[in-house]
Structure formats: C-alpha cells, structure tokens
C-alpha cells in the first residue's frame, strides 16, 4: 500500500530548506513514499504551516516532517495531527515543548552559535576584549533560530547575555549594534553599511547565515576593510564553505539538512510499516544530526574541520 508523507518548511526560498526538500524527495523516491511539500510564504509564517498540517491530515498522510516557524504556537496543530494518527517529526528546530512531536531531528542552533563565538574569541586573542562587534540578525520578529544563533555566538564570545530569549538587550559596549538582514545578500549589505556608518572600526561580524555574510563582505570591501575584519556565520552551504575557503568568512557552523530530511523520511517509512517511532540521541531529548565548525584557521580548544572537508559535506 502506498505511504504518503508531508514536508513542511519555514519557507521554500532559503537554500537551506531547498536542500532539505531535495534530500527528502530523493529519499522518498528511494523508499517509495509519496511526498508533498509545503512552506510558509515568508519567514515566520505560522498560519501557512497550520493550513499545511490541516491539508496533510485531510489528505491522509502517514507522517509529517516540519520545521516550525513558531515552535510554541504550532503545538496545537501538531497535537491534532497526532490524534488523527499521523507521525509528526520536527526537523531542524525542536518544538516547544520538545515532546510535542513524536521525534526531533535537529541541529542545536545555540551550539552552532556558541562554536563560532568561541572560535572568534580565541582567534582574536587579547583583541577580543576591545572588539567592535556587528550582529547581523534575521528579522525584527526574532524567530527562535535567530535568537538561538545570536545568543549562542555572544555566549561563546564571552559577552554577558540579557534575556537569552531575545537579542538586542545586551549592555556590553563592544556591541556596535544589531541589524536585520532577512538572511540574504541585500539585507546583509545594507545592514553592514549602516553599522559601518555608525562605527567604522568594526572588526567582528556575526551573521545569521552565509548569504548575509556575503552581503556584509561586499560592504566591508567597498569600505576598504576586506581584510582585518572577522566574519563568522552559520549554515555550511556550499557557497558558504567556498567563502570560508576564499577567506571571506572566517568560520561557519555547518549543519546537515539532507541528513535530517532523509532520517525523517526513513522514520515515516518505518512507522508506516510497523508503527515504530525513532529514538533520540543518547543523553539528549532529540536526535542530534550534529553541527561542525568549518574553518581554515583552526583555533586551539575548538574542534573544527577545514574547508576542503567541509566542501565534501556541504549541502548546496
């Protein structure tokens, strides 16, 4: 009998989710699962995800893979779907509470931020004490990835956090400012230009993802600061890793969307066969698909791989 599954991502324009979809589609084909994909219209689009879950249930899907835009708010719809006998697996972002989903295959975004923070701190050495930090975040609505990565970075860098559930409330004078980028080159460029106008001595740039980092780099280059400024990012997409290789980005935390997606599809196929549910990683309440720091200038005390290895593992 045919098994059908749904993949619901935050948007389907971000390369990260595009790759996740590709991974899921490939795996689904391999296992003979009929896969339908849905996405929010903009970042943080919660309603479209609710509508998508409803459509999947109406359509009689066996399982749903979801990267939730609003991890708390989606819980109700997930509950309704599970009550209707659908297996729900959270990908990339855990739900809140995490046991609202049957299983979670995710990256630890806070850890991803922490890694680049630690790397940056070590790399700068003593200069870190008077660094000038620019933070290029995602959106003013501060979705959870945005907060986790940003706060993780600051923690790793040794900046005292305010409320760890939001960015922008830190009082450390090293922070020049937060700007939002929508996670693309255009946003990264404009945000960097604005922060440079505010303080031309910025030497440390955190970016939400690699496209934003590429945009920031263009702005720095135009200001004649293409060397001497450290850019760190998160994602590990192939263009991003290439940027690490070319020295545009100092370090990035790589995540593995393809792995998440294929694991998810496998879990649904297994569930359809014998009703078994996947188990979490030992010692954690979710299945950690892992995050790895990629840099060509390893720092002592921070595990990392180089960009050549990163290119083999990158996802798009």
């Amino acid at each position: 009998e045919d098994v059908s599954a749904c993949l619901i991502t935050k948007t389907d324009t971000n390369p990260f989710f595009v790759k996740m979809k590709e991974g899921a589609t490939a795996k689904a084909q391999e296992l003979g699962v009929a896969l339908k994909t849905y996405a929010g219209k903009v970042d943080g689009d919660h309603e479209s995800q609710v509508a998508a879950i409803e459509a999947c249930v109406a359509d009689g899907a066996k399982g749903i893979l979801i990267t939730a835009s609003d991890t708390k708010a989606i819980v109700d719809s997930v509950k309704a779907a599970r009550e209707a006998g659908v297996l729900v697996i959270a990908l990339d972002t855990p739900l809140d509470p995490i046991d609202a989903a049957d299983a979670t295959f995710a990256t630890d975004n806070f850890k991803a931020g922490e890694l680049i923070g630690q790397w940056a701190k070590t790399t700068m050495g003593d200069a870190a004490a008077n660094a000038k930090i620019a933070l290029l975040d995602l959106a003013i609505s501060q979705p959870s990835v945005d907060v986790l990565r940003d706060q993780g970075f600051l923690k790793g860098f040794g900046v005292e956090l305010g409320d760890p559930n939001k960015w922008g409330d830190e009082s450390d004078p090293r922070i020049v400012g937060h700007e939002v980028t929508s996670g693309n080159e255009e946003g990264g460029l404009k945000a960097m230009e604005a922060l440079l106008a505010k303080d031309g001595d910025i030497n440390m740039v955190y970016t939400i993802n690699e496209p934003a980092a590429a945009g920031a780099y263009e702005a720095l280059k135009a200001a004649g600061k293409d060397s001497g400024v450290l850019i760190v990012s998160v994602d590990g997409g192939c263009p991003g890793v290439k940027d690490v290789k070319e020295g545009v980005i100092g370090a990035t935390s790589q995540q593995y969307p393809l792995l998440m997606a294929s694991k998810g599809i496998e879990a649904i196929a297994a569930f359809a066969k014998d009703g078994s549910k996947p188990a979490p990683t030992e010692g954690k309440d979710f299945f950690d698909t892992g995050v790895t720091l990629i840099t060509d200038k390893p720092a002592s005390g921070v595990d990392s791989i180089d960009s050549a290895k990163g290119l083999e593992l990158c996802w798009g």
Partner: protein
Amino acid sequence: MSNDAKTVSEAYESGLTGASERVAEFHEKDSPLKRLQHWLHTTPSAVPMIVLLLALLFFGFATSNFFKAGTLSTILQQIAIVGILGCAQTLVVLTAGIDLSVGAIAVFSSVLMGQFTFRYGIPAPLSIILGLGLGTLMGAMNGFLIARIKLPPFIVTLGTWQILLAANFIYSANETIRSSDIEAQAPALRFWGNDIVFFADAAVKNSGVKVLYAVFLMIVLVAVMAYVLRHTAWGRHVYATGDDPQAAALAGVPTGRVLIQVYALAGLFCAIAGWVMIGRFGSVSPTASTGQLGNIQSITAVVIGGISLFGGRGSIIGMFFGALIVGVFEMGLRLIGTDPQWTFFLIGVLIILAVAVDQWIRKASA
C-alpha cells in the same frame, strides 16, 4: 417689463400645450441568454459565485480527497480569519480607501488580549473587551488621520501597519503564549476554536465533521454587514462616500464622520479576527504571519469578489465568495500536491483570471 419676457418665451413655448407624456418604452428582446447576462450584471456577487463553482468542480475531479466533508470544513476554517478581515477591508474599500493595517491590528489585538490576561492577570473576558476596544481605537486612529488630517488611506495605513507591527513585537517581547496555558487558565480566549460536530458516529472516535464556531461567526458577520450596507441609511452613506466624496458631502452626507466610523468598525472587526486567531491557532503568537500578509489576503478576497478599489461599487457577499475561491484554490492545489512555489504561481494566475472572467461577463452584458 416682465410682459416682455413672457412674450419672448411664449414665442415658442406655446407649442408645449398637449405635449405627449409618453414614456420611451422600447421593445426588448428577452432571450434567455440576454436575461442571464442582465441578471449577472445586476447581481455582481453572482460572478465570483460562478468562478467558485467552476473551481469546486475542477478540484473535485482532479483530486479524490477534495469532496470530503472534512476537507470542505477545513477550507471554511482556513478562510475564517481572512473572511473577517475581509469584512473590515470591504467597508474600507467601499469608501475608496484601502487598509494595509488590518493584519497588524488583528495580531496586535490578539497579543493585547493574551498579555492582559497572562501578564497583568486581568480576567480573560475583560481582556477580550479591552482588546476589542483597543482594536477599534487603532482603526479610529486611521480614520481620524484620513478624515480629519486628510491624508491618503494608503499611506496612513502603510504607516500604522509598520507602527502597530513594531509595537506588537516590542510590547510582546516576541513571546508566544502557549496553547496549554490558555486552555488551562483562560478558555474564553479560545472560545471561537470550539466546534460543533455534525454527522458524528458515536461509536467511532473523532468521526464526523467539525465546524469551528469561528466559521459561524464569519458567516454571521458577513450577513449582518450585507444587511447594514444594503438596508440602512449608514450603509448607503458608505457607498455614497466612496462613490464621489465631494458630491456626497454636498448632498448632506457627513463624509468625515462616516469615514472615521468605517475605519473604527474595521478596527473592531480586525480585533475580532485577532480573538478568533487565538481560538483557531490555540496560542497567542506575535509573529503570526497575518500581521504581514493579512492585508494582501483580505484585499485579494475583496477584489476577486468584484468590489471596485475606486469605491462605491460591489457587495460584501462578493468578498465572501472571493475568500472562498482563494481558500478552495489553496486547498485544492495542496491536495493535488503542487510544489509551494507553483502554488503561489497558480494563485497569481487565478487572481488575474478570476478578475478577467468577471470583467468579461460584465462587458458581455453591458
């Protein structure tokens, strides 16, 4: 010398005696087609209804899961919020305005209701009343700027959209209030998320068709507004204000007051939509995409429903069908399993097609 004048006009007006009072009645060809066209012409909301029927038929054939009671009730519950926002938008568009802030008012009102209850411990029903009142006030502010300061609606609501959305994020500190907390402590907030189950089979769990209270609310609101717009003086004034504001003012319509009332009422509808959102989504989330997209969605419903953006023409029933058409398309395409980008693409095509069909029918019958 008025005799002089008398002679002058009598020079020709004497011809008037015995003037015919005959009415110019013309022989009319009453072919069935002509009559259909005439009916369509005089019943503008019938046009979106026909588009809707065609869409239903198409998806019914294209996908097997479509004509299930569950699917249809899901469509209704998915458009409940857009439908209520559409009531607000219809009012505004009838006055030749546009309200880009509807979604922001809805989300902000829902956040206010939630935070009042959970942050300050105000009893939920009172929070709801406060939320509705504040939503009305936000709308009234739009109305004031438009009617008294005489700023263009587009720009005023573009501004308040940004202002309210930012205020919403700042005030809520981006915090979502969880569904389980609401259920436990403030069930009134979730009132519209309750449902009535039809055709339930007592033996089988979760059988039957659930229809949310929110769906009934939307239908009632549309019906009430249809009555108000058609059968009360105020409704006529709304149309007159949109049709030609200067003429309406000269003819004795207090256009300024009507505008403020319209925007305030729109604000109230948005706040109601905000309350419904809590019931529908379970939780209170300041990042709900209605804040970003509610305006475009409601405008789409209004325009597919045949309401003129230049004001004064169209009916709220049309808006309801417009919202349904979009809902049916989105669900139908999802069930067919089109890729989301293709869904956007096709919704774009649909918007243009629906209006083109509408235009074509109107032209044929003109």
